[in-house]
């Protein structure tokens, strides 16, 4: 057995079902060995998207996503994908081919110091020097990626190691790393303190982040909210933890969120931050958030607690474990009527704090609010919705209603072009679900090369493109802050999308106005086929 075969054996041991990637000489031995197995290989059209595909796959399957690319430019192209996964704590194992061991450091053809270059975007990285280390390193890599605060792990493997004979293959049962022991169970004393504070609070609120999805704690949080009558708001990554239709859910916070969600956050006397970073987009002034309130910060990563804001009660551990424990405490009887005033107040805010929308001539353009509301209603309730980055993302956060499905987006890094490859991976993880990717024409043109990947693998993602001939989000910023000087945002001469659809042999739909939009939605969801739907929106429409 050679190194490449050993790697593949490790992937089989980890029950990996699919590897996304791009070949090259330095990774060819690995793919040669992979071809002998039942593990599916998906050849994307540029390496960055291999990581995004693996990310979409990981988020829906709750397994570790795997991608493998060649050395040099293949590896450096992967970096944005790795950084995107790192910012959202998505578990990936990224394999890169490397030049022969003895050539490392001599700047030979297609050599890049990828472990060095990716250092600040990975949870951990390995450069394999000895073929016999392969089983241990892969066991560790999958363990590191999928435990504690999830994240990408990079494994760089020189070609000669892939081809070297391994003396004996034995996949370890357990990981033994003295430097890595993430805290899973929450501290019992802290949990008791939390329960006590919750019982005393008159105006409690829970702010959920992406960590709740990563921990698989959606049911526990919903139960906790319901039993204790605590309203919930979410960060962008926390969308979908609560059903959008749940009366206890009060929307997304932050500068792109709902005004009533922010107000709820500010007026609470107890804030439970759960699996959220308290980053600048979600909380305007993190330093002020603890004024007049008790802040409980629950996160698996101790370094997140106190990074942006000093909590009253820090609680480190896995959210699912912690909320299972918290939910075991009883004695909630008298709370419900006590909190009715608070809930009534928030409902009043929800009804009265109506956001202003620009006037839109719906005979000339589609109103994204009406469109997304309608699309939400027509989508199956377990549909997977992937939003790209930009105005389309903010509109999606506001108006897409998540029922039993998932809402995916690149929240931390804000990587344009995430939606098509992530939707591809999501669809592979759960092929029976309807998967929609919603983007602008900017993000589309950053990822349209993957249309041929969709076709090649028969992956029926539905693509919705809001067309406005602008990089809308930046244009909006220029409108508010730079006196409408529209530099570097005009996307005139974008390709004719009907021709693109024809070139890739996909169904094409277009809506020029609101009336056509309704018909487009019906047609979009009619059959399980890949579709490009072009939705013309007002170039001067705003996200807020």
């Amino acid at each position, binding site marked *: 057995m050679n190194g490449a075969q050993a790697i593949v054996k490790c992937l089989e041991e980890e029950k990996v079902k699919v590897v996304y990637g791009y070949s090259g000489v330095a990774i060819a031995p690995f793919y040669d060995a992979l071809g002998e197995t039942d593990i599916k290989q998906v050849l994307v059209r540029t390496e960055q998207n291999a990581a995004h595909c693996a990310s979409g796959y990981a988020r829906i399957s709750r397994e570790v996503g795997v991608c493998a690319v060649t050395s040099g430019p293949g590896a450096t192209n992967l970096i944005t994908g790795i950084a995107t996964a790192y910012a959202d704590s998505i578990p990936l194992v990224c394999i890169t081919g490397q030049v022969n061991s003895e050539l490392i450091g001599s700047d030979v053809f297609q050599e890049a110091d990828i472990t060095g270059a990716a250092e600040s975007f990975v949870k951990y990285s390995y450069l394999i020097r000895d073929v016999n280390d392969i089983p241990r390193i892969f066991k560790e890599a999958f363990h590191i990626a999928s435990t504690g605060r999830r994240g990408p792990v990079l494994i760089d493997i020189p070609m000669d190691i892939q081809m070297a004979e391994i003396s004996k293959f034995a996949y370890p049962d357990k990981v033994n790393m003295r*430097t890595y022991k993430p805290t899973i169970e929450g501290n019992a004393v802290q949990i008791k303190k939390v329960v006590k504070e919750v019982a005393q609070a008159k105006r409690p609120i829970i702010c959920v982040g992406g960590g709740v999805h990563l921990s698989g704690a959606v049911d526990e949080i919903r139960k906790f909210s319901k039993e204790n009558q605590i309203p919930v708001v979410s960060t962008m990554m926390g969308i979908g933890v609560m059903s959008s239709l749940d009366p206890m859910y009060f929307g997304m916070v932050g500068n792109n969120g709902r005004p009533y969600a922010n107000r709820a956050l500010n007026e609470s006397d107890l804030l439970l931050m759960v699996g959220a970073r308290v980053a600048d987009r979600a909380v305007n002034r993190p330093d002020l958030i603890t004024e007049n309130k008790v802040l409980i910060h629950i996160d698996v990563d101790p370094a997140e607690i106190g990074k942006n804001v000093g909590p009253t009660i820090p609680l480190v551990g896995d959210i699912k474990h912690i909320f299972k424990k918290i939910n075991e405490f009883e004695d909630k009887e008298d709370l419900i009527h006590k909190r009715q005033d608070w809930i009534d107040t928030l409902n009043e805010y929800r009804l009265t704090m109506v956001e202003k929308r620009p006037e839109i001539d719906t005979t000339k353009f589609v109103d994204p609010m009406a469109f997304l509301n309608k699309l939400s209603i027509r989508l199956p309730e377990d549909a997977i919705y992937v939003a790209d980055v930009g105005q389309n993302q903010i509109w999606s956060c506001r108006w897409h209603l998540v029922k039993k499905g998932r809402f995916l987006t690149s929240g931390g890094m804000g990587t344009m072009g995430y939606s098509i490859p992530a939707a591809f991976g999501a669809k592979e993880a759960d092929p029976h679900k309807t998967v929609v990717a919603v983007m602008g024409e900017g993000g589309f043109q950053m990822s349209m090369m993957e249309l041929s990947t969709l076709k090649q693998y028969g992956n029926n993602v539905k693509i919705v493109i809001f067309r406005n001939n602008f990089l809308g989000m930046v244009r909006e910023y220029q409108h508010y802050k730079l006196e409408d000087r529209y530099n570097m945002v005009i996307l005139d001469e974008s390709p004719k999308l009907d021709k693109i659809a024809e070139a890739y042999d996909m169904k094409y739909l277009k809506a020029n106005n609101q009336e056509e939009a309704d018909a487009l939605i019906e047609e979009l969801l009619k059959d399980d086929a890949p579709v490009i739907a072009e939705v013309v929106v007002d170039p001067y429409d705003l996200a807020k």
Partner: protein
Amino acid sequence: MKRIYSVLVENHAGVLCKVAGLFSRRNFNIDSLVVGETNSRDVSCMTIVSSGDERTIEQIEKQLNKKLDVIKVKTFKESISICRELTLIKVRYNRENRRDIMENCDIMKAQIVDMSKNLMMIQICDTPERVELFIEMLRTVSIVEIARTGTVALTKCGENDKN
């Protein structure tokens, strides 16, 4: 506020780079950084002196702990530790100032470790403050070169007894 981080790390390639990279990436200062093996060959000890407010110090410690090559982080103030810095100083001397330099060395318990016709090399091993003071005293003569190790430190023995 000054803090000393005594960081035990896995003794393998690239670890120094990861730890130093963490400081620059997160915009933390490094006043000095010293690395050496410990009594166990697969473990190195990095002594890092850094400064910042309370929250920065806490973040540095947490971020260090998060690195998978870091085995243990101990953070302490100078006041509960013994700190030493080894410094070599090459100075130019002449007949007039030779005696002065030697007297200064005596007072500060520095040693002359090498000499030529015009130059002498002085070694001082002391607390960073006293090293600083000694260098200041030598400013009157012409200093040719200086090499400083940076601070190494361990907590005082009594601190171990407390635990």
